[in-house]
């Protein structure tokens, strides 16, 4: 009992081949779109790679790029095959390639689906990576003289200016980190020495933030030092405090930014996946219809096309048996000569020898 059986006349087969040729060429274009989306995502991630602690998120754009390229190649080949399938004679050329091609396309289509699902599932890993990356960036903000970390200050400043955010979760994160290098601290000054002695680890901590945390929407000049001490500044009321610095944390901002991009990309990839599935189904019908035509022998006759020849359970069972029997060529358990006592064998041989002269 075939799954999804449809009968095709000759005209319908030719029409199907033409339509599939066109759809395959459209798929080449969508494959190029997929490639472009992967490239775009890669560039966006690499812009702020320094504030991410692990590069695991790069799997997503790499997956999209490779499936995009594969889509272009597979659908290009599919276009050529479908064009030839309109004619029974030309189909013979491709007869042996068709089944592997359909299987390959099936696996490739599942890769596209995997890529789309990855776009949605990478969020928690990204959050973890941003949390650690931003924490390290803030810690090494002051190390502009250490090779390998000398650009972290600039990166973090530009990030806070561009995304209108401050710190990891909020601006208070800067209070827990020494962001002024010892090179610029006057160790002879009593104020500095007091502050260093106050701290257990000898770090110079202060309730101040870098200039990049300053909000452009504040009506008053930015207050960076003694941010939490409202009596240190004139007319520093609650509203001034609210507007003075950026309130959002950079982790949340970057997470929202990348999640937004990946959700739109994921949606586009899902639509492309549905389209590829449609093309795959069409190619499968065309393949089975053409094979049945050859089996019937008459190119003008009607033929059946299907998705699976037998029901799903039977196909699974037969495939499983094939895989099981693949490993059996070199097994010797079925050899009848093993573990049989030699005396009985000799007797058999003797009795046969006695019998033979009688019958000849």
């Amino acid at each position: 009992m075939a799954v999804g059986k449809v009968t095709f006349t000759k005209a319908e087969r030719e029409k199907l081949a033409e339509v599939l040729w066109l759809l395959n060429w459209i798929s080449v274009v969508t494959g190029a779109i997929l490639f472009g989306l992967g490239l775009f995502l890669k560039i966006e991630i690499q812009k702020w790679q320094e504030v991410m602690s692990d590069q695991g998120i790069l799997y997503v754009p790499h997956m999209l790029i490779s499936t995009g390229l594969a889509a272009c190649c597979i659908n290009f080949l599919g276009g050529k095959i479908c064009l030839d399938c309109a004619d029974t004679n030309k189909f013979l050329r491709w007869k042996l390639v068709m089944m592997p091609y359909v299987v390959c396309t099936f696996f490739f289509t599942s890769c596209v689906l995997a890529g789309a699902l990855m776009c949605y599932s990478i969020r928690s890993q990204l959050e973890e990576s941003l949390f650690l990356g931003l924490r390290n960036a803030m810690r090494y903000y002051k190390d502009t003289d250490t090779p390998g970390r000398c650009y972290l200050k600039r990166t973090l400043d530009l990030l806070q200016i561009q995304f209108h955010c401050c710190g990891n979760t909020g601006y208070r994160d800067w209070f827990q980190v020494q962001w002024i290098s010892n090179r610029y601290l006057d160790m002879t000054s009593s104020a500095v020495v007091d502050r260093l002695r106050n701290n257990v680890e000898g770090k110079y901590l202060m309730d101040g933030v870098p200039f990049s945390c300053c909000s452009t929407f504040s009506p008053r000049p930015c207050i960076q030092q003694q941010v939490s001490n409202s009596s240190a500044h004139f007319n520093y009321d609650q509203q001034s405090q609210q507007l003075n610095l950026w309130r959002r944390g950079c982790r949340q901002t970057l997470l929202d930014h990348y999640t937004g991009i990946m959700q739109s990309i994921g949606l586009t990839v899902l639509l492309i996946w549905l389209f590829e599935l449609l093309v795959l189904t069409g190619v499968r019908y065309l393949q089975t219809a053409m094979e049945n035509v050859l089996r019937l022998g008459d190119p003008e006759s009607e033929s059946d096309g299907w998705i699976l020849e037998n029901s799903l359970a039977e196909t699974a069972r037969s495939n499983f048996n094939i895989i099981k029997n693949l490993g059996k060529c070199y097994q010797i358990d079925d050899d009848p000569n093993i573990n049989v006592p030699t005396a009985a064998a000799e007797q058999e041989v003797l009795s046969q020898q006695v019998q033979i002269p009688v019958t000849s």
Partner: protein
Amino acid sequence: MLLKINFTQQRRVRLAQGLWLMSWLAVMCGAFIFCLGVYLKTELLRRNEVMENTEIHMVPNILMMVGLASIGTNWVASRVCQDSLDATRFPRWKVLLLAWFALAALLCCLLIAVVVLSYALQGRLEESLKVGLRNGIRFYKDTDVPGRCFQKETIDRLQMEFRCCGNSNFRDWFEVQWVSNRYLDFTSKDVKDRIRSNVDGRYLLDGVPFSCCNPASPRPCLQYHLTDNSAHYNYDFQSEELNLHSRGCRQALIDYYMGLMNSTGPGVLSVILRQMTVAASLRYLQAAVEGAMALGGTQRARRETSPGEGSRNH
């Protein structure tokens, strides 16, 4: 007769076809010029608040007008080509063609004028920016005055985006009171001294807003007491280069807009060339077809030639 070429029937057909294609390409060039004008205009409008007058807007306005006119004229040219091989339909275009040539010449002149203007107006742009920025810096503190309340945000965003500080350089901030009186504690001795030491009673200080800070500086930004070496540890005012943006915003904006207009220069010149080519080819086609019609119709044998001319001497 100037620049005479002979056209067979076959060549006339080829000319008409080629010209039809070229005029559609010229329509797209016209659209490109229009988009260029729109882009330039939006870029100028974005920084409208730091420009005192809008004289420089002449350049994008002319570009937009020329773009639209070019789309129209080249569309007409393509219609003329389509009708040129049909003896019944061509005569109605004869009257229009003279006007068409005049319009095409005008468009080319306007495009050349745009290129010249974009260089000539540089001085006016600089003046406009100088006054606009000076006002912006003056009204920086007036965030509670209607009509000026967005100056602070505009100037801050401008300085951060273009990596510039002040009008000519950061010292412009020393000559202006950019801290509003609302945030000055008049009971404090320091404030009173400073105000008293100034003739106009303004609170001037050797400090700059945070938007002048350079993110590429290796040390945390120093905004206040900039001329006082002893106010900061390990600081020398004369040799400190990276702390603030060194460029003035006027120079930064002029460089940006001149860069924009220079990069559009080659595009505009190629459009001029294309338009002139279309006009010349249309003139040849017109003369060839009229000559053929004068000789008695375009349905003769293939060997028939007709003179096509660049221009006619009467």
